[in-house]
């Protein structure tokens, strides 16, 4: 009976959840279709574009290639779990402030991949940021604003009173 629903318990955005779904569903499908969390986006669904990135046990992975069933007992974090206490995560603030998005479709994935990086490295170099985000594709913006936003958020998370560089906001005069 491969299509009978299975019940799964795991931790989602710091809360325990139980959900029933068809056993061959990917985590992406379970999140969007069975849990109603549509912040995680469908992209290529083949592991190429990075748009479906979520954190499992703190590590960024592609939810289109993770089986829901493989997540039993694990910690899953989606973009819906980033803001807390009525305020955005510093990365979300920085992305908005710098316009590090155009259509925004890839943004949840970039935010989570960047959060995982900043969890490991408080002061990442530009190269480390590029490397950490190299599996996430954005077809609108180019990546410069995204790198700058990650650097700005990193500085604020270190407690620095950082502001965006004027040329980031207004261009070079």
């Amino acid at each position: 009976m491969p299509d009978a629903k299975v019940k799964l318990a795991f931790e989602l955005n710091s809360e325990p959840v139980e959900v029933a779904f068809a056993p061959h569903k990917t985590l992406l499908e379970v999140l969007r279709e069975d849990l109603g969390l549509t912040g995680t986006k469908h992209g290529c669904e083949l592991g190429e574009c990075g748009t479906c990135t979520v954190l499992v046990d703190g590590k960024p992975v592609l939810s289109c290639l993770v089986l829901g069933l493989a997540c039993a007992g694990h910690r899953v974090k989606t973009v819906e779990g980033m803001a807390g206490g009525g305020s955005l995560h510093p990365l979300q603030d920085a992305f908005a402030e710098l316009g590090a998005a155009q259509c925004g479709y890839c943004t949840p994935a970039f935010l989570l991949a960047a959060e995982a990086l900043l969890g490991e490295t408080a002061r990442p170099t530009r190269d480390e940021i590029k490397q950490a985000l190299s599996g996430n594709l954005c077809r609108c913006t180019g990546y410069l604003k995204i790198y700058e936003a990650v650097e700005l958020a990193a500085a604020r998370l270190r407690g620095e009173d950082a502001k965006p560089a004027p040329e980031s906001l207004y261009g070079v005069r």
Partner: protein
Amino acid sequence: MLRLPSFTYLQPNTLALALRMKADAGPEGTYVAGGTDLYPNMKRRQQEPRTVISLMTIPELAGCGIRDGGCAVGPCVTLTDLCAHPAIRQHYDTVAHAAELVSTPLLRNMGTLGGNLCLDTRCNYYDQTYEWRKAIDFCMKKDGHICWVAPSSPRCWAVSSSDVAPVMVALGAEFRLVGPNGERIVPAARLYANDGINYLTKQPDEILAEVRLPPADGWDAVYHKLRRRGSFDFPVLGVAAWLKWDGRRVAAARVVLGGVASRPQEVVEAGAALTGTDLSDEAIGAATEAAYRPAKPLDNTDFDLSWRKQMTRVYVKAALEELRARRR
């Protein structure tokens, strides 16, 4: 939208249980580790197992440590963990380097060493959705009868696209395979066959249970990869070169090419051209020519095939020059 076909998913916690589950599932059962190769293939209906048996829940497949002077690595170690492991970084930096060149950080968090070693061969006419493949009446690797790369060919020419496999062959690593009738140890080169369909000599019910790296003593190795994008891509050419030094002389050498055949292709003549030399420009030139001749890229991956063949010269030369520069 690409969805997985329905299947039964099993999570054994011992090798013995995994083997029993595979025996019960028969030919319609398959093993999976990270899933980054199998699940896209299943979504495109290139593989359609009815039972998928995860190896990620078997603790004995996940370790990594120095043993008997060499290093024993579990095949379910993720590529991220393999790159970061202190013993691998210190003694087998070329293995770490090759693993680091595989795909993206996200996929390396999921994909495993064993998965990269058993990676399905790739081809422009095969790595497509079901509808795309149906539109050309399929190919012999799945659902069809013809090889679209070489239509008169009786065999499939899909390409070995692993980064780590050529390094394992060059290093002379060994694999422990466990099956229903016991276990066997095979040299890395013997795991692979030059056939796009039957590219592994591992039987379908056997599990790659351990990767054994030789003692890190007296040899050096490098890996160079050609791909379109610096950020991530499968190799269209990989060059793994290994040397054993005897003072200033090369006591033994192996040059192994990836991305030019259905298996990692050792060029024995290139190794022979280096042996006994001091890795002079002339020796490197002779080895480069030897490696260029048998490299037969076909028109079934990225880039123009004649350019890819020319690049064999360039990349083998660069790999050998790096080995010379690294000589202590």
